[in-house]
């Protein structure tokens, strides 16, 4: 039997691989331009204060300093990604009148070197009038609490309501109603490459910004808004991005301040945030206070759920409004809830703004939901797999008024995880396995950015030697979209990955794509690439058919660079030979094709959803509370796998990040000041903490995705904290409703439970 695919579903190493393993990949961090200056940003030491005056004269007089800018040098545009909802655009980046969090930029310096710029920061005198601050959402909504923004009464920034069915009736019919409170903590993205930009403005009115970003298109447009330039007088270049995870698709202080300085000085200016700035003054995962009330039948049938959330917004809207919506939507995932009601409130606080981070509100929702489901199963005496299977979403299910699930392998994922758990047999003392089920979107349908362009576009040019130039707008930040796009293009066009020359990361050369967030690239950019490739192929096959004069009932195809009759594969022509003739025959015009994708009539959230179930085995030391991750399996439905090597990498990376969220990472604060803004005190998992990881691919076919593919990577961040918490519960019988699940909390809970079991050191 012939293989279904020639390229797809074979492990392909990153098309940027050679550059990355030889140190050749040039990141913005590495860039040096002729005549370049170095910038540094002065940041507010106060969580809430009026700016009375800024005196920059001493800094300007320091030898080596070329320029200083403050809010007065800007247009004072309140910006944000919410271009359709102006009231949510609330951040100036260089504050003019008031600072609202510790770390908010107030001035920026450009100098001949970094040390001089840093020295100059000390010479800028800012006169503040400190204002009372408010740091916790439940305090910030109280009557009389200090207000961050004049128009936000009680500091309420955004509210969200989602409802379907008859929730109250559902509760009436329930045999068991459980109420639980949860607290989900914050998390830092910790991209290895901190936010950075090199801006270069030239006297012809053109601005070029090299930057580490997830969306060069967004940055270009947002810069145009705040700088008063035309969109296409700005060029954003981002060839390599050293990690993103949701932190790099909003306009940041490095991009903005370097641009303002460069426009003032007409010299390139480079700003690289320090690791400390990265922690203190870039955005972060949204902390959430969750209330869940859930009603079920005694056989485990889900009847009604009511969810309420207060999220700590920090000082500005950022992408937090979307996190607020998505946490509410994914709170009902991945199950068939006949009745559901969600109310979410995003509250401004004098803390660094909270925003998008891998999972985008869903990891919080999944932690709370999956913890509670285990508690319900326990109360009812029902197996945890069974209760999930009984209520699992399925292909053809409609989330009322919200979404339509076209492909769903959740039940099969549950079966696979069940099998894995059974192979484990009896576990040693104080060990346990926890599971969590999850789902996620494949790109958002929202267009709050108000782009008039297609969500994704691709252009293909086929050259005389058979080499294919593929121009995409998608951004590879490590997740491997470059490889995915090259594979999709090669498969559709019938050539090999090595025949593709990929062009990305440059707004002057590449078509628009909204960027790498919300798990959108594989499906959206993938569809655009597939469409362009199909169009190019059509042009080539028309010519080949004319040349080969087959019987009209025969079909032609291209595989591995061989244009042939499907019925008689040996009869054919070499791809590059035909291409050469096509070009010659067209008066020398190369083959050019376009593709694009924009979701239409696909519900409120996303055109497609991935699903999965994860199980984690832990060992808990009952005398210290220490959790050790032993093993982990994830059964995962991402539709048709494009690059197995990429999917595995995404999965393992997600576990490391989400397990960190589960038990080691946190951003403790005192009066708005982050107390661990460095990699000594912020605890990331290392090689030694990672468990074994097994991936079980459950393949489905997603009609909306290219070759049936959907999201694979971001959603994998959703289950881990919940599975980890449930494993701790399984191991030592305590349930922790507050992230992160630290050893100290576990020990305390064990104490509270009853007298501890004893287990000597092994």
């Amino acid at each position: 039997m012939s293989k279904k695919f020639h390229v797809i579903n074979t492990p392909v190493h990153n098309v940027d691989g050679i550059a990355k393993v030889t140190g050749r990949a040039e990141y913005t961090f590495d860039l040096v331009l002729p005549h370049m200056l170095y910038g540094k940003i002065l940041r507010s030491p106060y969580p809430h204060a009026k700016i009375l005056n800024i005196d920059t004269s001493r800094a300007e007089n320091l030898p080596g300093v070329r320029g200083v800018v403050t809010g007065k040098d800007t247009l004072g545009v309140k910006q944000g990604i919410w271009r359709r909802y102006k009231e949510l655009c609330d951040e100036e980046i260089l504050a003019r009148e008031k600072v609202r969090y510790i770390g908010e930029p107030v001035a920026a310096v450009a100098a001949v070197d970094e040390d001089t710029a840093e020295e100059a920061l000390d010479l800028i005198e800012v006169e503040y009038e400190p204002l009372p601050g408010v740091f916790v959402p439940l305090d910030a909504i109280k009557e009389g609490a200090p207000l961050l923004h004049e128009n936000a009464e009680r500091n309420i920034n955004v509210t969200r309501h989602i409802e379907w069915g008859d929730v109250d009736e559902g509760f009436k019919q329930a045999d068991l109603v459980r109420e639980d409170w949860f607290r989900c903590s914050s998390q830092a993205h910790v991209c290895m490459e901190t936010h950075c930009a090199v801006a270069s403005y030239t006297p012809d009115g053109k601005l070029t910004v090299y930057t580490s970003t997830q969306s060069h298109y967004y940055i270009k447009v947002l810069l145009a808004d705040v700088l008063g330039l035309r969109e296409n007088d700005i060029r954003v270049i981002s060839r390599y991005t050293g990690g993103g995870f949701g932190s790099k698709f909003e306009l940041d202080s490095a991009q903005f301040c370097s641009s303002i300085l460069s426009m003032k000085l007409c010299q390139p200016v480079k700003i690289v945030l320090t690791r400390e700035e990265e922690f203190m003054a870039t955005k972060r995962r949204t902390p959430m206070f969750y209330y869940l009330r859930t009603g079920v039948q005694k056989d485990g049938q889900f009847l009604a759920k009511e969810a309420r959330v207060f999220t700590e917004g920090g000082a500005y809207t950022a992408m937090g409004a979307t996190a607020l919506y998505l946490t509410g939507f994914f709170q009902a995932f991945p199950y068939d809830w006949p009745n559901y009601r969600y109310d979410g409130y995003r509250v401004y606080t004098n803390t660094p703004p909270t925003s998008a981070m891998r999972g985008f509100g869903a990891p919080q929702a999944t932690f709370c939901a999956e913890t509670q489901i285990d508690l319900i199963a326990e109360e009812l005496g029902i197996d945890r797999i069974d209760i999930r299977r009984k209520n699992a979403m399925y292909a053809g299910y409609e989330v009322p008024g919200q979404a339509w699930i076209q492909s769903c392998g959740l039940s099969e994922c549950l079966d696979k995880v069940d099998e894995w758990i059974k192979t484990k047999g009896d576990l040693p003392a104080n060990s346990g396995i926890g599971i969590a089920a999850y789902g996620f979107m494949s790109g958002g349908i929202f267009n709050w950015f108000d782009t008039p362009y297609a969500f994704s576009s691709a252009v293909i040019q086929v050259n005389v030697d058979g080499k294919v130039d593929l121009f995409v707008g998608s951004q590879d930040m490590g997740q491997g979209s470059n490889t995915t796009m090259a594979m999709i293009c090669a498969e559709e066009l019938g050539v090999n990955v090595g025949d593709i020359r990929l062009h990305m990361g440059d707004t002057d050369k590449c078509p628009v794509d909204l960027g790498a967030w919300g798990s959108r690239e594989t499906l959206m950019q993938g569809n655009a690439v597939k469409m362009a490739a199909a169009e190019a192929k059509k042009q080539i096959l028309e010519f080949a058919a004319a040349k080969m004069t087959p019987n009209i009932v025969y079909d032609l195809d291209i595989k591995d660079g061989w244009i042939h009759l499907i019925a008689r594969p040996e009869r054919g022509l070499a791809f590059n030979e035909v291409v050469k003739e096509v070009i010659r025959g067209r008066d020398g015009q190369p083959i050019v094709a376009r593709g694009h994708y924009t979701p239409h009539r696909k519900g409120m959230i996303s055109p497609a959803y991935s699903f999965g179930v994860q199980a984690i085995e832990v060992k808990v030391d009952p005398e210290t509370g220490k959790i050790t991750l032993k093993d982990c399996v994830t059964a995962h439905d991402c539709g048709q796998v494009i690059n197995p090597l990429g999917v595995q990498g995404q999965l393992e990376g997600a576990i490391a990040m989400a397990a960190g969220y589960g038990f080691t990472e946190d951003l403790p604060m005192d009066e708005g000041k982050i107390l661990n803004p460095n990699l000594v005190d912020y605890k990331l998992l290392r090689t030694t903490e990672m468990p074994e990881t097994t991936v079980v691919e459950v393949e489905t076919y997603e009609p909306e995705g290219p070759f049936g593919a959907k999201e694979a990577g971001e959603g994998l961040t959703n289950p881990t904290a919940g599975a980890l918490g449930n494993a701790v519960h399984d191991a030592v019988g305590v349930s922790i409703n507050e992230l992160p699940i630290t050893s100290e909390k576990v020990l305390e809970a064990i104490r509270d439970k009853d007298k501890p079991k004893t287990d000597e050191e092994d």
Partner: protein
Amino acid sequence: MDKIKLRLTVNKEYLECYITPKKLLVEVLRDELGLTGTKRGCNTGSCHACTVLINGLSVKSCSVLAMQADGCEVTTVEGLADAAALSPLQKSFLDHGAYQCGFCTSGMLMAATSFLAENPRPNEQEIREGLHGNICRCTGYNSIIRAVKAVAEGKYKEAADE
């Protein structure tokens, strides 16, 4: 501050340059010599992205004054491949997808190179302990461990012999 002379052999090439004594080795490699394959990811000596070899041993180049390496042999990621011939570890990293964004990759490769030179037949736990210092935020490490293991098991021997 007066500059003083630094003598280094970097990737087998002897060179001299004049630097202020406060320059860190990573700064000299990146800023003076243009060897930007070596990265920096923190200010606290925690991320190990800046790992290079000094006299064959892995060291954080952000935690060494360049002058302290005076007279030493330094190897950076740029010195791993012999022209177009990638080192076994580089090949194995490619095949195992042992990198994503690539920012930690140079440091990871240098740490692994030094580790395998010291301990050519490690078990998995030893590899994990040997690379413990290097932070990777993308991969979850397991692909890196598999890549190093494959080299340790001799699967890339022909690459070494080339």
